[in-house]
């Protein structure tokens, strides 16, 4: 193949330009802000070194917010990946009504998170929520149930909504991977006498792995940065006990008006994500190269 040395870079150029201008520049600004003094109303002042970082780490809610973030990311990404994988396998089967089933499944994704969160917030209200309404009117329960009687339960609800909206993303990533698997491979495996599980293990999983890797890494990032669900459902109440990193730093910035520590915290979150994602990717990519 006669390709000049610079050809790949021409192909990459539009993408590089787009990302550098519209993403890297704002990131640069955040780094700058995290080392600057910022007034309560947002006026950017002088360079103050690591003071914002020191303040951020000493915030009283720092520990619980970290714990929540961890729980939130692990549970939402983990459960939605498993569920998404199962659903993708099912939707990859040939059955009547598959098209409709796929279109239905995309619904949670096709609605903005703010709306999803508002609807679920409405559904699980004790006094007028639709869940109580339906269960009562169907005669399944005898009395309205307080679905959000403690903050732990509220946080679990938030996670459930997070899973609900994340599953379609995972499903369609995996489904696109499944679709590009050559049916001949399955036929060959069947001829070799492989059963369902063995085909799953030896054909499906290895071939879906690239799609799964991408979706998982990006999912971790998106879920970590997911803001509207918790903000709409609890606003971190009571006392930041249901906040994750991203909602907490929003509250910190715009409610408590500690904008300096908030931007420091966002850089800390970025570093944590960087470390986690690069460990994961390093492992996966090395394997991929060796295949």
């Amino acid at each position, binding site marked *: 193949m006669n390709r000049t040395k610079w050809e790949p870079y021409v192909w*990459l150029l539009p993408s590089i330009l787009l990302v550098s201008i519209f993403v890297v520049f704002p990131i640069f600004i955040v780094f700058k802000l995290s080392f600057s003094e910022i007034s309560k109303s947002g006026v950017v002042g002088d360079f103050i070194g690591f003071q914002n970082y020191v303040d951020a780490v000493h915030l009283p809610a720092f520990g619980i917010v970290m714990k929540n973030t961890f729980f939130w990311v692990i549970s939402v990404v983990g459960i939605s990946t498993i569920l998404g994988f199962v659903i993708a396998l099912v939707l990859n089967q040939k059955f009547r009504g598959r098209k409709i089933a796929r279109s239905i499944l995309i*619904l949670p994704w096709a*609605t903005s998170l703010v709306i999803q969160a508002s*609807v679920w917030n409405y559904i699980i209200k004790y006094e007028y929520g639709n869940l109580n309404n339906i269960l009562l009117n169907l005669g399944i329960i005898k009395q309205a149930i307080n679905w959000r009687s403690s903050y732990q339960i509220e946080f679990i609800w938030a996670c459930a909504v997070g899973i609900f909206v994340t599953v379609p993303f995972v499903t369609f990533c995996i489904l*696109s991977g499944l679709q590009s698997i050559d049916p001949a491979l399955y036929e060959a495996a069947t001829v070799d006498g492989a059963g369902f599980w063995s085909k799953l293990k030896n054909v499906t999983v290895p071939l879906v792995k690239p799609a799964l890797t991408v979706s998982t890494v*990006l999912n971790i990032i998106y879920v970590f*940065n997911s803001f509207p669900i918790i903000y709409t459902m609890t606003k971190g109440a009571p006392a930041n006990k249901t906040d994750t990193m991203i909602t907490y730093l929003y509250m910190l910035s715009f409610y408590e008006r500690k904008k300096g520590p908030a931007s420091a915290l966002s850089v800390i*979150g970025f570093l944590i*994500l960087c470390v986690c*994602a690069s460990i994961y990717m390093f492992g996966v990519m090395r394997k991929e190269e060796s295949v």
Partner: protein
Amino acid sequence: MTNPELRKKNRSSLIILAIGMLLTLAVASMPLYTYTIGESEQVNGLSLWGFIGSGTSAGMIILLTILLALFSLICGIAGLMGTWEIEYKDLSPRTKTLRGASVASALIAFLLIPAIYMANNYFFNRKRSLFLTNHLEEGSEEYLQSMDRLLFKGSAGEGIESSLRGLDIHLSGMFFLLLFTLMLMIIAAVMIRHGEIKNTLFKMLLYFFVVVVSVVTVYPYFVMLITGLRTNSETLDMFFLHILPTKWMWQNIVDILHRGVARFLLNSLLVAGGATGIAMLCGIPAAYALARMKFVGKKPFLGFVIVSQMFSPVVLLIGISQLMNTLNLNNSLLGLMLINAAFNQAFAIWLLRGTFISISPEMEEASLIDGCGTVSALTKVLAPMAAPGIVTALIFVFINAWNEYTVSTVLISSAELRPITVGITTFSSFNMIEWQYLFSASLLATIPVVILFMSIEKHLTAGLTSGGVKG
């Protein structure tokens, strides 16, 4: 296999199905015989038709069950007649459809039984509790009295309270019958398909799973629909009086359109469409280079795009707004398009690269040797084969841009340029959340995405079959 055996098998499957259906009907009409008044007096001998004609939801479901059972039997007989001696796999598609319909309607009829009991329980228990809390609707009294005349020949007493008192449906006893019926019907289904036990059970399980997942998924949209078409006062139904709106307010749709929702939708379409176009135009070439070419800085670039996604736009607001100011793109849809395209590059590039890698390069190489340029090798050979990946990336970028909220609130200052996500905040203002408008607008906002998805969904499956190449 000899034909008499097949014949026997087919006949017995029909008999089992018939028994199953009879049992279904028996269990379904059981509530009619188990009403009690007070504690002792048993009321028997009520006419089934009288109950069906009573207009209660339970009566209607019983009617539906009977019709389904009949339909199932007719389909079963039609599907078996004249095909007694043919193997399942050799049957004509029409016969297979008939047999399938028979099994499916038998199962649906079976599943309706709990609904009958629930509807009965609902009707009487809710009416009683509403009566006790003074929330019984007007007209219910006459209705209950006519029920009393029908069910108890007027013996339930004068007042509404006494006619409500003893109405309770016994569920125990029917439970074992239900299990037994289910067993029978599965056996019948398996036999109709000539002993393909594994496949039949698998199919049933598959449908069950799909139905459960679909119901959970559709549920919030159902809530949006029924709430979005309520009157303002009915959106907060604190005493859980109605599942469905008492008055369907189609006027709500007109109202939200008057408040600019059409304009917001158009803006969202422009932003999401533009962002998708830009993201694809930048992403496909980049992904192609990353998948097919060897060059220095490949891995760092892949890492770089991932890292670029690690900040949420919420955090980057100040930087984004400063940038847009410099570029004079504040308060413009183009600015939103570029931002959305940029924030979705990582996914587009990674997914497309993965798809391209999974496709063998033989065909393109052949076309390159044939004298095609790289560009036409990409568009004419690779792109069609990578359609599932491209479509997934496309949907992904479109949906993300469609749903973007935070950046738009800050960048867009004129009302007529707001995308729908920002636009609908006008329904949850300081003084009042107008749930009915919020939800009907949300529902409208979902429709374009679903239409887009349905129109390109088939390409998700097109993939390899159209490519015509074997790895």
